[in-house]
């Protein structure tokens, strides 16, 4: 895995910029949501719900050798697509890379401004949760090596 988080964001933006209309950009997002791996039912728990979203969002993560692997789901197709974008960008990277790299790609996708600034749609809550997992795993790992 040589591609950085920043590389992946740039690639995503480039790809979306080739899609002309907003309808097709949403179609692409929704399509990506459909490709999201099935969310394991054993993780569909209250504690894995991301708070502050207007739709239901689940996010689970596991650490693996200094990296984080995420799975996610939502009952809304667009949000599911956004999750798949977020995970495509962040999943599988190192604790430090995830913690250090801000999510800049959302503004570049050519979607309504509200998707990026919203407390309501939960994208920011989701991104926060992604980072919190990395922070928590890093803290645990440091403790174990002490």
């Amino acid at each position, binding site marked *: 895995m040589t591609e950085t988080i920043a590389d992946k964001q740039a690639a995503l933006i480039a790809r979306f910029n080739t899609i002309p209309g907003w309808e097709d950009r949403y179609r692409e997002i929704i399509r990506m949501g459909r490709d999201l791996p099935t969310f394991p039912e054993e993780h569909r728990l209250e504690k894995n719900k991301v708070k502050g979203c*207007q739709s239901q969002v689940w996010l689970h993560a596991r650490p693996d050798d200094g990296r984080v692997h995420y799975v996610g789901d939502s*009952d809304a*197709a667009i*949000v599911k697509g956004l999750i798949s974008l977020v995970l495509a960008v962040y999943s599988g990277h190192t604790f430090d890379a995830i913690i250090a790299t801000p999510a800049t790609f959302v503004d570049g996708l050519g979607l*309504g401004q509200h998707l990026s600034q919203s407390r309501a*749609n939960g994208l920011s809550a989701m991104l926060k949760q992604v980072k919190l997992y990395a922070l928590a795993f890093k803290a645990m790992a440091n403790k174990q090596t002490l």
Partner: protein
Amino acid sequence: MSAFDIERVRAQFPMLSGREGARKLVFLDSAATSLKPRVVIDAEADFYARDYGTVRRGIYGLSQAATARYEGVREKARSFLNAREVNEIVFTRGTTEAINLVANSFGRSVLKSGDEVLVTAMEHHANIVSWQLVCKAVGATLSVLPIDDSGQLVLAELDRLLSPRVKVVALAHMSNVLGTVNPVAEVARRAHAAGAVVLVDGAQSAAHMPVDVQELGCDFFVCSSHKMCGPSGVGILYGRHEVLEAMPPWQGGGDMIVTVGFDETTFEAPPYRFEAGTPPIAQVIGFGAALDFLDGIGREHLAAHEHGLTDYATGRLHEVPGLRVFGSAPGKGGIIAFVIDGMAPYDIGTLLDEQGIAVRVGHHCAQPLMKRLGVASTVRASFGVYSTRADIDALVEGLHKVRGILS
């Protein structure tokens, strides 16, 4: 369809006419909050710029004049609701605070352990949680009048539920999800016969139909300026004189006292007893302009206009495959909640927003009702004085486009 000139009405709303460069707004969330006419915006701004003064405290001219205008709006509000006396009108921050005032002042002094507060299955959280908090504090319980599948109260259950333990019946005048207009006068009559007082949550009715608190026969009626073409931050608690008079103060502070000592304090009569501290002065004055605006149109005309839109919208929405409306009570108001099979309300709302169409998506602060309806959330389109058939046409077209993207 309407007895007034809708284009002249719309021209008075800068959000609809005056946003240069902005896309035309299709605003279908008037049940959440209404747009403001120019007269209301100007009333508040001019007050700050030319006539600003605090109320009830200064002997100088500016303060006296502000007090006279502030109290003048109280009289306007009395007349708007046809209350008997101007002292029956208390200004609050809005509906929510008004209900909390009653729950805390009246509720805490009257409710005892084992007593009940009866609400309905269609209430907004404001008319549930405020009572829950007080009930919990005093050991009382909440009971619930059910609704049928058309979204109407099951009145046949009312007398059974109205046990002597019920001290308060709190119900919406109009449901913010179903649009149902409840038979408040009938409920009040029976509740009074059973010895309970009646609070009517008029958040959704006040700006959309004529309201006469004497005809409704309720003890309390509450509403929010921001849903009535007025400023945010202000609302009305109407309380029947005899009931208000007997209520202890809730919040303490300036202007609600007669004398203050560290040992003993005596309180003003209503409404001042319930208006502690500096009130939302400029907002009350703007609210006065909103009441004049609504009365200038005439609430019968307004109700007729919105009923026409509701009928039209109900018909047109049924053209959309898989669309299901919640609430089919006869005479329902301009609020239409719906889902479309296989599509998340969030997705529908987001894709309508991309088309410049503002609808509300979610539980509408009515989670118990959502549970009763068997959904987690719905899309909701709601109308105001400035809404048009063209708005509804845009919604229906927008929904067709949404379907094209989502399926």
